[in-house]
């Protein structure tokens, strides 16, 4: 029986997740949209249904509420599925510097939350015969910079976790793709200065779906960010620490 693909979208209110849901809807897939702002996600779900999604369910999911993750995963339908991890939190470093609670929260969402839910999802996916995990990380995880190093460190941790997860599940039919977007035109970055060559959420969503189909490992989006980050990573620390990047 050839089943329609089912995608679980975590952080369904994010700009890229919305574009991703719409893309899948137009291709007639099934969706589970999960996040905190249920009223907003219901609107995205309605949009997906009208645009052609065969089946769309809405679930409450909070990355910070790790105690709830086990039940969240247990309640997923018993069938093969894929995961698009699109939640994240980015506060300006200046605000983080003023608030220890905000520092904790950034790590709790971007690292602990992601690890907690993925560590429960991966075995379940293997049980159901495999699938694809696509996780939105960030180029900020490649090197700590004064402008966003708490965010960056959480994403760096996530990158290492995804690396291990990928190797652990490669033989079990679960592919793990780490997507490192550069500057994206999302609500998270809207109004920030100094951005260039900005990618659209629609293009990113299309790329993510293609990466999943090919089972890619680590990809920069747009692709030229690989080069930018290669240069940034190559700068010796003695020099890097004097640059205000």
């Amino acid at each position, binding site marked *: 029986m050839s089943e329609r693909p089912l995608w679980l979208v*975590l*952080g*369904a*209110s*994010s*700009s*890229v*997740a*919305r574009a991703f849901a719409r893309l899948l809807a137009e291709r007639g897939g099934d969706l589970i949209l999960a*996040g*905190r*702002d249920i*009223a*907003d996600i219901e*609107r*995205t779900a*309605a*949009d997906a249904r*009208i*645009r052609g999604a065969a089946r769309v369910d809405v679930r409450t999911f909070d*990355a910070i509420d790790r105690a709830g993750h086990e039940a969240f995963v247990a309640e997923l339908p018993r069938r093969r599925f894929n995961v698009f991890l*699109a*939640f*994240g*939190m*980015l*506060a*300006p470093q200046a*605000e983080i510097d003023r608030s220890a609670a*905000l520092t904790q929260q950034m790590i709790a*969402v971007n690292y602990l939350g992601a690890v907690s839910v993925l560590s429960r999802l991966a075995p379940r996916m293997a049980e159901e015969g495999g699938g694809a995990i696509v996780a939105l990380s960030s180029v900020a995880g490649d090197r700590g910079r004064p402008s966003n190093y708490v965010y960056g460190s959480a994403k760096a941790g996530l990158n290492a976790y995804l690396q291990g997860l990928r190797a652990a599940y490669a033989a079990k039919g679960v592919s793990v793709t780490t997507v490192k977007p550069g500057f994206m035109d*999302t*609500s*998270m970055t*809207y*109004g*920030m200065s100094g951005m260039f060559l900005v990618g659209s959420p629609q293009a990113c969503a299309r790329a993510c779906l293609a990466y999943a189909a090919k089972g890619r490992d680590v990809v920069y989006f747009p692709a030229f960010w690989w080069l930018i980050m290669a240069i940034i990573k190559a700068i010796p620390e003695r020099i890097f620490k004097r640059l205000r990047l």
Partner: protein
Amino acid sequence: MAERIATPSWRHASFAGWGRVLHAEMDAARPERIADIARALGAVGRRGVIVHGGGRSYGDAALNSGGQAIMTSRLDRLLDFDPASGLVVAESGVTFDDLRRVFLPRGFLAPVTPGTAFASLGGAVANDVHGKNQDRAGNFGRHVVWLELMLPSGEVRRLLPDDPLFKATVAGLGLTGVIVAVAFKMMKVPSRFAAVRERRVRNLDEFLEALEEVRRSATYSVGWIDALAKGGKLGRGIVESAEPAPAEEGERYREARRWRVPFDFPAIALNPLSIGLFNAWHWRSAPARERVRRISYDRFLYPLDAISSWNRLYGRRGFHQFQCLLPEANSRKALRSILETCVGSRAASFLGVLKTMGQEGTGLLSFGGRGHTLALDFPARAGIGDLLTRLERMVLDNGGRIYAAKDSHLSAAGFAAMYPGLAQFRSILAEVDPEQRMVSDLARRLDIRGDGR
């Protein structure tokens, strides 16, 4: 869940009306969720805020110099669709292009659509837009079943057509608040094609006669007018009428190729000579006797959308649009003198449109009524302001009105004389927006609030 801790951010940017003669520096927010709109409205400063949708208004309707704007481009979700009745509920940033892509394959067409598919639904309501079927179908507002409006205070209200605030929001130029959702009925069509009849007409009398004939018989009717032809050829053009075409066995539809204008043309490119040559060629390309063709709705309804950013053809200085409605009793005489004035001033126009209108609009400031509507474009240059002032006078003298969505030059006194619903509009505005949060360059120019601000 991706989120910033900070309240909605604002991006400082330069905006222009579609005609690119009017510009504004604004701080713009781009909400993605309904709650973000309320937060944005809560952060409005002294210079007020205007809603910015598809950016297809020609003049300053969606500009607010030195102030703020709320962009609706990311509020673009379809919320409900009932295939039995054709009822669609959608967020205000949904465009006619979205509607076309999603619903035309299922046999539904927007009941009324402006000449560009890139206009948003919010803009369609706020300007009470019309299309080539105005004579029968009226303006867009007439097809709206209900609206959800976020008042400047942040309160969301559902408005039915008999509500005075509904009548102020339809054609309300974005001044009553932010439209959050629009519910309207789509029209069932048998195929993706229209059967389009066209024939050329040699002068204004022939033009008006042909329009009279098609307004009685056709669903859609429109005329292209050569606003440079003079003397015995004054008012020559091409009259088109169309009906939904029945489905044909095995007919294939292909998405039309889109071209783009990659740079601003030099201003000199569009001059009276080049436009005169284009117009003469275009007129001759239509058959003298009637011809019927099957044309996709995309091409028939949105011919200019085939070239994205076609406004760059006019060069960096841009162009003025002018659209007036002339009541039937005076229209023949008035059209003649307006055309003669344009010809005399050598102010060339190549997107001239003349068609009939038949229905009043539902909004207090709607552009509608029975008569003839003439739309012209003028590449910006010295002297156009004087011409537009003279045209305003002629429209007023003939009991007509000028369309705000396209305007860039009308005077406050002229606007007040053309729109008798203004007094009631002002009093509703005073009620829903006592702190005067909503404002635009157009509202200031036309003194729509009536406080000379």
